[in-house]
């Protein structure tokens, strides 16, 4: 924090990203006075001190990463900066002017634009309408649609995208939608751009495209706050890092001064769980002579998934690897009965079974935790306890589980998975993403499944919790639970699984013994296997 200069206020200093005058070329500039200056920010919720006297500053022409575990206060800080929460004490200065935000519109007026993890645009409107929404040029009192689309196209081209501005936003990929959101921020003439987990649903190429735009904006003098759980990406794009832990500021560092291990240690407050220990747990022999827990043959659905075969044995972790949209989620949804397969057979412990509904799958000891925590996992207005009990309560039907049993189950699994805060009566929607994930796993473990299907359980979760979850999964499989584990992070899949099913273009293209394959080999397999012959 020593490199932070004294506060210099220059009222009226406004950066226009479009002006050619100021082009900052080198990354990690330290010579600019901060455009955003947060001092002594404190925010408390009933029973929780979410932010405790935190200082944070953002300089023009830098990409600044905000790092911390789930519940460290990152979201709260962002929400203070963007006017969602009002602060209990402390001060916010933007371009030298003291601010009192009473809503997001105040923050937007001050030049702070936010892009959330879930894109908040109108997908049923055209690209151009979205870019110019609320700022449509007018002619004689009516909206000049020609000008709308022309200006939108100019803004988009400024970011290096040329798409038809009259096309529906919903027809474009999430990546394009995000770039549209950014160009919208440009229309609002934002000096500060807040990007909250912008890359969580992008593939590699799309991330590159986004990063090119971010670098361009930075070089034009915008101040960019970047939040991501991907350490690689932080080290690729960020110039400076601020670390929070338990609502307190740990420190502000230049990226080049902070090696990865040091960052992780600062985030979680202690050294990381030994990941090597997890891999050694995984590296054990699985008895594949017995009847498999689950055997799916030729399971598919027209237009969704080509017929695929999967076997999972007792105590085995089977990984599914492949790019987003390769059919990973589609496959496990068919196995679970969330969608119906129109071909193939499924055997559970040797007995042929029709997976017609989730209810049916649960009765056969199969549990499935969806990749979409918010829409398909957590019931947000119910309490943590009610969420954990939902699985077993659904099985019991209308007979209410006895209170004593409820309490013991909730206590057992909240402790086992270390759900924080440890308050069973908290509304589940208020938990951080990582803790919501733990609650969901608790829900499924409470049903005592034979096979647990985890679809992207570590997405959007900090390194510490990620490692905890992996260790927990390894532990459970050692105790005999079979697991299907899907993750975009191939290291995780290789670390945990004994076998990896590889998917591409909505079909299974092969199976690897993960003990005998390295990361490069897996990536190569995903990219190239069968390319020559299949065509």
């Amino acid at each position, binding site marked *: 924090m020593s490199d932070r200069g004294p506060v210099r206020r220059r009222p009226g200093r406004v950066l226009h990203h479009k002006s050619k005058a100021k082009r900052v070329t080198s990354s990690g500039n330290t010579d600019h006075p901060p455009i955003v200056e947060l001092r002594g920010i404190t925010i408390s919720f009933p029973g929780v001190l979410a932010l405790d006297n935190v200082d944070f500053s953002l300089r023009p022409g830098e990409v600044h990463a905000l790092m911390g575990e789930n519940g460290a206060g990152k979201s709260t800080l962002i929400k203070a900066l963007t006017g969602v929460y009002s602060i209990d004490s402390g001060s916010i200065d933007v371009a030298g002017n003291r601010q009192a935000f009473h809503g997001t519109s105040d923050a937007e007026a001050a030049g702070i634009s936010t892009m959330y993890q879930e894109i908040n645009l109108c997908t049923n409107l055209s690209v151009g309408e979205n870019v110019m929404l609320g700022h449509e040029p007018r002619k004689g009192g009516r909206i000049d649609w020609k000008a709308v689309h022309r200006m939108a196209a100019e803004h988009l081209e400024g970011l290096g995208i040329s798409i038809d501005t009259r096309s529906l936003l919903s027809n474009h990929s999430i990546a394009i939608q995000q770039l549209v959101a950014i160009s919208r921020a440009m229309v609002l003439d934002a000096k500060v751009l807040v990007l909250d987990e912008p890359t969580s649903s992008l593939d590699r190429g799309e991330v590159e495209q986004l990063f090119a735009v971010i670098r361009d904006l930075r070089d034009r003098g915008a101040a960019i706050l970047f939040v991501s759980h991907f350490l690689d990406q932080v080290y690729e794009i960020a110039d400076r890092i601020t670390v929070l832990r338990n609502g307190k500021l740990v420190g502000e560092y230049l990226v080049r001064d902070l090696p990865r291990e040091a960052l992780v240690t600062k985030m979680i407050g202690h050294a990381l769980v030994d990941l090597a220990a997890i891999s050694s747990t995984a590296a054990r022999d699985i008895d594949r002579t017995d009847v498999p827990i689950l055997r799916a043959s030729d399971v598919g659905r027209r237009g969704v998934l080509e017929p695929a075969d999967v076997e999972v044995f007792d105590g085995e972790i089977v990984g599914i690897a492949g790019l987003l949209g390769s059919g990973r989620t589609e496959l496990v949804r068919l196995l*679970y009965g*969330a969608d119906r397969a129109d071909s193939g057979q499924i055997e559970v412990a040797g007995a042929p079974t029709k997976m017609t*509904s*989730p*209810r049916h799958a*649960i009765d056969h000891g199969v549990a*499935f935790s*969806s990749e979409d925590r918010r*829409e*398909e*996992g*957590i*019931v*947000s*207005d*119910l309490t943590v306890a*009610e969420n954990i009990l*939902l*699985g077993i*309560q*659904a*099985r*019991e*039907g*209308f*007979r*209410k*589980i006895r209170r004593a049993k409820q309490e013991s189950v909730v206590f057992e699994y909240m402790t086992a998975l270390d759900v924080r805060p440890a308050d069973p009566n908290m509304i589940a929607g208020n938990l951080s993403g990582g803790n919501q994930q733990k609650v969901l796993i608790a*829900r499924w473990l409470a*049903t005592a499944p034979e096979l647990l299907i985890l679809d992207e359980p570590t997405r959007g979760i900090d390194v510490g919790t990620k490692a905890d979850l992996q260790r927990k999964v390894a532990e459970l499989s050692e105790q005999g639970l079979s697991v299907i584990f899907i993750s975009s992070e191939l290291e995780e899949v290789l670390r945990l699984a004994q076998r990896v099913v590889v998917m591409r273009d909505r079909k299974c293209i092969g199976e690897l013994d993960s003990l005998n394959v390295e990361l490069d080999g897996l990536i190569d397999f995903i990219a190239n296997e069968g390319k020559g012959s299949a065509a």
Partner: protein
Amino acid sequence: MKHRLFWPVAALVLLILINTVARSQFASITVRDGRFYGALIDILRNSAPLMLVSLGMTVVIATRGIDLSVGAVMAVSGAVALTIIDSSADANSLGTVMVAVVVAILASLLLGVWNGFLVSAIGIQPIVATLVLMLAGRGVALLITGGFITTVNSTPFSFISTGYLVLLPFAFFIWVAAVAAVGLIERRTALGVLTEAVGINPEASRLAGVRSRGIIWSAYAASGVLSGIAGIIYASNIRAADANAAGQFIELYAILAVVLGGTSLMGGKFSIAGTVVGVLIIQTLESSILFLGVSSAQSPVFFAAVVIVVVVLQSPPLHRFVRRLASSVRSRRLTEPTSDLEAAG
């Protein structure tokens, strides 16, 4: 201030107080022939149909649905009951009336099941699915009565709405029993929490193994049965089956009662007690219109004004505004203690 029923209850108490101040006999209850009489007793008696309909509406709304057909179901139920009594040999026989009531309730159950089928099995949007019956139901009722307003003179049937049981109106006992039954079923079993889960996040609930189809179906069936009972009480009160007037606009009042009681139209968390208070507010309001002598031309405006005040009192933005105002007043007082002292001294 913290309890979510605070504002509805406060509004109800305030309404009663205003009436009592305006005309003191509003709150007076007299005993005659071993029965209570008074404006408040009338409110308890007259709220029965709306109470039953609103109970069903609460459960349906909790599943993210809505039931517009409640008024039409009331009309069908009344038509069925009165046609049976009318065509029987002895309208005053208790047996006939019991048969009529049971058949009418079964017919209403059938209509509720039909709504539930359209919504949960076919997947039609609730507002559209129940609109069908809302429009067609009254036609069915007219068909049953042959296009006439069937009237009967049956002492046991009239007892349902006008009779007394131990000091209090029989209709009051009916709705108390219904509230107790729905409350017990929802909260003593897991139905309540499963209904809320389905209402908050249907897909997550389905993936968690909740049989959401059955839960949604049962909500519409319950709404049908409760509306059917309401229809019987209504028909008993006017001693006639009027297919057009029975339960007219009651779906709107029921939705209003549910909302006044603090249950969100977005589904999920619901409050039976809140709905009870909501219905009592509406019924008290209707009584006050009569009691305070508001002319019939002005009564909708009066009604609307009070409802707006109650709804605004409950709105979170207002609460936030008041809190901010209070805290700024408090902080001003803290920062300027000296001037206060000077002024005082």
